[in-house]
């Protein structure tokens, strides 16, 4: 019996080795046929959240139909987590998947170093020159240290400060003080005045925790050393500690009922988030509130809190890659597509040329009839290019617990930083 078991186990291992070798051989690149406008294509695209609604508008537009009458699009849409779990699973298993896959910026890092997606910088894609008109930080986030481009940025989420004008005025704060804040100390001082008037500034310290880290989409490692420069990360911990210690947050967990309702019922007066959050406020979170306003983060600090990328999995058949690339090029570099998506779901364009489009200078009635979209453009263009690594997800998870430890008072700032750093180093060995 023992002999049979050992034999079966060895057989299984041998079979596994053979199959894995076969898979790698099969994944080797076949030559990519050129896109043929005379041929009919069906392209499948894997999406999450409300992207399908936006892209359906794009693909129904006269411009797209005139350029690509031969292309039919099929959608596979899931919720945010389900989509990325599926994608990670199929790519890791070298399985076939959709011809185009959307990725949120938080997931880009594992694909940048980990593989699974076609290198769009290589011929025939030449994505670096195609994407020369896209914001540079977003392109940098999808580029490996060897120069491979794993996906193209289609929308970004420049971070801004949202504030309720009626609530801050009621607390005796002139909105210009928020607009002209030079640093977080100024905002904390304003928060204390709000508190004195019975207002709550932020829903939770976690809502601003990533802002000093430019949003935390990359920048976790410098020369393979985690959490450097130290001052930047210490600053983030000190900020959340100050917010909690001064009692200017409501302790509402993100996306909990009270957190969502707080933006409509006057519980909170300040919030930091990406451009998309403005759309959420306007359409479903607080559609009846006319007092939300938008300004720069203190000191006009740049940060991005989200964004979407489109990539072509390596397992996509060679004859489909060219047409998938045509679709990605259209979605990322055509003003029609970028502005249609922006109008539909408020996903801010990654294409810089759209920032001078008249629609970007329009006054937005919901936000005090001011041309707030230019703020997003300014932030997007001043974002630093951060390097991403395959260990970002690990660093982010460990850092998140350090932040929670500081907020709850279980850890001091220095202690939390040191513990997080040593944990990251030990984990990525």
């Amino acid at each position, binding site marked *: 019996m023992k002999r049979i078991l050992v034999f*079966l*186990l*060895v*057989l*299984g*291992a*041998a*079979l*596994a*080795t053979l*199959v*894995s070798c076969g*898979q*790698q051989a099969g994944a080797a690149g076949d030559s990519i046929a050129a896109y043929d406008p005379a041929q009919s294509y069906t392209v499948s695209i894997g999406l999450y959240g409300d992207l399908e609604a936006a892209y359906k508008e794009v693909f129904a537009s006269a411009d797209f139909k005139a350029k690509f009458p031969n292309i039919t699009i099929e959608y596979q849409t899931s919720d945010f*987590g389900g989509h990325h*779990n599926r994608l*990670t*699973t199929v*790519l*890791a298993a*070298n399985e076939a998947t959709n011809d185009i896959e959307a990725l949120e910026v938080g997931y880009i890092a*594992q*694909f940048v*170093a*980990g*593989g*699974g997606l076609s290198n769009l910088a290589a011929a025939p894609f030449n994505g670096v020159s195609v994407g020369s008109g896209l914001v540079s930080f977003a392109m940098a986030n999808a580029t490996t240290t060897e120069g491979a481009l794993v996906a193209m940025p289609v929308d970004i989420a420049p971070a801004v400060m949202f504030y309720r004008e009626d609530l801050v005025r009621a607390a005796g704060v002139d909105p210009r003080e928020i607009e002209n804040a030079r640093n977080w100390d100024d905002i904390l001082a304003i928060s204390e005045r709000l508190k004195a008037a019975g207002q709550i500034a932020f829903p939770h310290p976690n809502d601003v925790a990533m802002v000093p880290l430019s949003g935390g989409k990359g920048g976790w490692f410098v020369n393979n050393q985690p959490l450097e420069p130290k001052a930047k990360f210490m600053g983030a911990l000190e900020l959340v500690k100050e917010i909690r210690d001064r009692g200017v947050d409501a*302790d*509402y*967990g993100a996306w*909990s*009922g*009270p957190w969502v309702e707080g933006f409509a019922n006057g519980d909170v007066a300040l919030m930091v988030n990406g451009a998309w959050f403005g759309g959420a406020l306007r359409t479903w979170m607080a559609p009846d509130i006319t007092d939300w306003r938008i300004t720069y983060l203190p000191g006009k600090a740049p940060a991005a809190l989200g964004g979407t990328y489109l990539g072509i999995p390596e397992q996509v058949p060679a004859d489909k890659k060219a047409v998938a690339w045509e679709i990605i090029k259209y979605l990322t570099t055509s003003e029609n597509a970028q502005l249609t998506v922006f109008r539909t779901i408020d996903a801010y364009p990654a294409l810089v040329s759209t920032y001078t489009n008249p629609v970007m200078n329009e006054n937005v009635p919901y936000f005090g009839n001011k041309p707030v979209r230019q703020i997003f453009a300014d932030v997007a263009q001043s974002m630093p290019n951060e390097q991403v690594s*395959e*260990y970002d*997800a*690990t660093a*982010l*998870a*460990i850092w*998140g*617990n350090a932040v*929670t*430890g500081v*907020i*709850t008072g*279980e850890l001091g700032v220095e202690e939390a930083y040191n513990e997080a750093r*040593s*944990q990251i180093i*030990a*984990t990525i*060995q």
Partner: protein
Amino acid sequence: MTKINLLSDKRLAPYVFISPFFILFLVFGLYPIGFSIYLSLWRWTMRGPVEFMGISNYVNLLTSDPFFWRAITNTLWLLVFGSFTQHFVAIPLAIGLNDKVLKGKEFFKTAFFVPYITSTVSATLIFSQLFDNNFGWINYLVNFFGGENISWFTAEWPAKVMIATLINWRFIGWNTIIYLAGLQSIPDTLYEAAYIDGATKWQTHTRITVPLLMPIIFFGVTMSIIGGMQLFDEPYVLMGGYQTMGGIANTGLTSAYYLMFTGWSATRFGKASAIAWILFFFILLMTMVNRKITKSLDKRSL
């Protein structure tokens, strides 16, 4: 050339008939098991094998990984207070349900079993509402009785207690039904004989019920060990998924949770496979210990 008819050849036919199981077992059972041994010896990322590690994945986990032993400790704590405690509640409940004078048995059996068939995610989301730090019913009760709000999600020990409560709630009913089935297989004649001999209720439980229930207890505890060591869904949903790694001080990070994080969030499939194999040996060891304990209790009681 002679044609071989597989089904009429008496030497081959039995193998043909049993082959579907072995083919399926080879493809879906043995192949993944063998592949995971192979994986565990590599540094394996999204792009496949990157570097042969030998047994380094195992050594690093056991000697220097800051989360592995924390995850094991958390798992063992939850095994004791989330899984083993179930049996101390389930056995008396089953004895109660087995009592001839109890009315409405079917109702109670259904009521106890409902948590087990409730979707884990739904139940966990409801528990997260109940235990909400600021607006939950549990803290409302704590306040009502003069206590202060407990930070169920952001303090280490309250979070553990919350997870253990959820696990107990979900699985006590399942264990109760298993023990009830065991109790119903004990012949009534033994109880009648004990009654005639003048045994008290307590004596019949300790001298008849528990000894004869020992194989079922072994089965129940073994299932709890396996389930407890594989505990994932409840802490994962309650504590916020991969992004939190079990929440404050990794209090909800179980070994299976860490395995899944390592595989699907950190995309270190080799290391995740090594965790899986270490877990396998832990479960094997604990099952053997359990076997030894229940056997010795069994002998002592006879």
